[in-house]
């Protein structure tokens, strides 16, 4: 049954049909083959998929990111990071990494983070004489940390379709996200050892304090989100609405957002939300169809026949997901494969939260692998370089991320120990 499902789905995708509709059709075909198709099931699950309080966190976190950008908050964060590390050799690269981590703690989307970082930092770095390809590669690779460090839209989706706690997923993403950022610093250190590109003048303590205070309210938000979630003070959806209103308030305090901009910000958020959520709704139909068609059980038998070793199994699944990530965007990939794979890994005793973190990191890497890498495209369109150029610039970062992912698989403790500590 799994082959019929994948065959229908991928044929429809290859003829250019948008993912949401392809999933609705594939699910209907499955239900039909099992002999229980009726139109009200299709309709009911489509609406149920959309009608979810947990998924409401998605528009709230998208809104937070959009307001932060429109309100000039991104610039303040970059200025602060620049006052800290801008004077080192290759300094603006470290600025991008630090600012990227802060952005990651504010928004949940790799595309939004890359667009925000890139718009400010790529022109700045190119003007200072940095290589355009590596600069763009750097910004795109930093951008994908946005989906690993909470909040994270793919984790919300994974949690909802997989029936896993979103708060736990968020807590589990913090340390791996920071490790990825440290890996980036190491790669950038090696790449920029000999660079002669311009540096920023070293900031005095007074200036640092000044930039810190300018960015203070924005820097506080990731802390509020993480502490509030960890303490169980609020749910991810409530954290989302608090973040959005908070972002709006500080943008007004900074006097950098006009009421007239709000229309575009809200309409843009609603559109992005609709695109993600229509796929999510279709995925709920698909999840129901593959469950009644016993696809996960079938897949577990097929994969289980190959190996019973959890580590080997994870390596196989991760290699498969990397291939998926090369040709498919992250939202549909999470929504299609999470419900199929979670029962398989659970049957081998693998923690679904840990697996979720791996899956999100894996598919985030997929966002910066050609030929289909949404984040790559964002970087290219800011720098006006070709996909081939950015591929030249990004391979060292890609190699590092692969190494990090493999070490998370071979040594699960790196992820699970801080995860247990943070979700206590």
């Amino acid at each position: 049954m799994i082959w019929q499902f994948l065959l229908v789905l991928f044929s429809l995708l290859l003829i250019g049909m948008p993912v949401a509709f392809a999933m609705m059709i594939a699910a209907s075909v499955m239900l039909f083959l099992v002999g229980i198709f009726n139109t009200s099931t299709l309709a009911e699950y489509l609406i149920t998929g959309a009608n979810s309080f947990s998924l409401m966190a998605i528009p709230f976190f998208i809104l937070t990111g959009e307001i932060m950008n429109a309100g000039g908050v991104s610039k303040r964060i970059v200025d602060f990071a620049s006052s800290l590390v801008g004077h080192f050799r290759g300094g603006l690269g470290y600025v991008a990494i630090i600012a990227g981590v802060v952005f990651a703690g504010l928004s949940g989307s790799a595309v939004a983070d890359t667009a925000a970082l890139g718009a400010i930092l790529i022109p700045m770095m190119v003007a200072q004489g940095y290589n355009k390809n590596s600069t763009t590669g750097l910004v795109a690779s930093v951008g994908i940390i946005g989906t690993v460090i909470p909040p994270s839209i793919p984790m919300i989706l994974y949690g909802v379709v997989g029936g896993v706690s979103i708060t736990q997923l968020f807590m589990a993403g913090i340390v791996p996200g920071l490790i990825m950022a440290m890996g980036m610093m190491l790669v950038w250190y090696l790449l920029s050892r000999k660079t002669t590109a311009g540096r920023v003048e070293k900031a005095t303590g007074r200036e640092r304090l000044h930039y810190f205070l300018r960015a203070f309210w924005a820097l506080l938000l990731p802390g509020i989100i993480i502490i509030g979630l960890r303490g169980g003070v609020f749910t991810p959806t409530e954290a989302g609405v608090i973040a959005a209103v908070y972002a709006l308030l500080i943008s007004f305090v900074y006097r950098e957002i006009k009421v007239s901009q709000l229309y575009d910000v809200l309409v843009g958020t609603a559109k992005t939300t609709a695109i993600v959520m229509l796929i999510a709704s279709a995925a709920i139909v698909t999840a129901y169809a593959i469950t009644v068609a016993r696809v996960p059980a079938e897949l577990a038998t097929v994969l289980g026949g190959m190996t019973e070793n959890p580590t080997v199994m994870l390596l196989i699944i991760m290699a498969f997901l990397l291939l998926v990530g090369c040709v498919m965007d992250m939202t549909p990939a999470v929504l299609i494969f999470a419900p199929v794979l979670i029962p398989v890994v659970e049957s081998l005793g693998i923690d679904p939260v840990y697996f979720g973190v791996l899956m999100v990191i894996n598919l985030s890497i997929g966002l910066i692998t050609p030929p289909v890498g949404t984040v790559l495209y964002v970087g290219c369109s800011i720098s006006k370089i070709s996909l081939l150029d950015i591929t030249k610039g990004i391979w060292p970062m890609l190699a590092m991320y692969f190494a990090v992912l493999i070490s998370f698989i071979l040594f699960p403790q790196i992820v699970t120990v801080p995860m247990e500590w943070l979700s206590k």
Partner: protein
Amino acid sequence: MNFKLLNALEHLLKGTIFVSLALMVIFVFLNVVLRYMFNSGLAWSGEVARYLFVWIIFLGSVIAVKEQSHLGVDILVSKLNLSVQKILYTVSTVLIVGVLALALDGLLGLIELNAGIGSPTSDIPVNTYYYAGAVSVVLMSIIFVIHTVRFVLFNKSAPPWANLPSDHKETEKAMEEES
């Protein structure tokens, strides 16, 4: 003519989702504030927010169909020549309209079934959910058909991956920038 009507519809939909999202933020936020600061809450606010959310999703999806911004995989189809693309686009539209028609049939059935039933705390008819879906699938189908006809016959409203003759692409782009 048809297309002007479509643009007017787009503005109307954008206005609606703008108001809906603003209200959704206000209701959910209000409830958080009431709960943590005053230890009370509005039972109906979460429910109303969910109604708004469903409408935002389904109306926003209509706009995304109009703007052709729903996510897809263009890795193969973008490499084909224009006439094959037109055939595949038509096939895709026929299948989409087909599945949307099935969904509409299901939705109408559910609307009939749930007539007169209100939701637990706000007493808003449950059918408000299903109407969002019904309105959306009808509008999406109409727009898909209009786009397909315009693309196949006139090279207009082409999907982003279409290999239109290059001069055509530029004029289309210039027109977009003007508007």
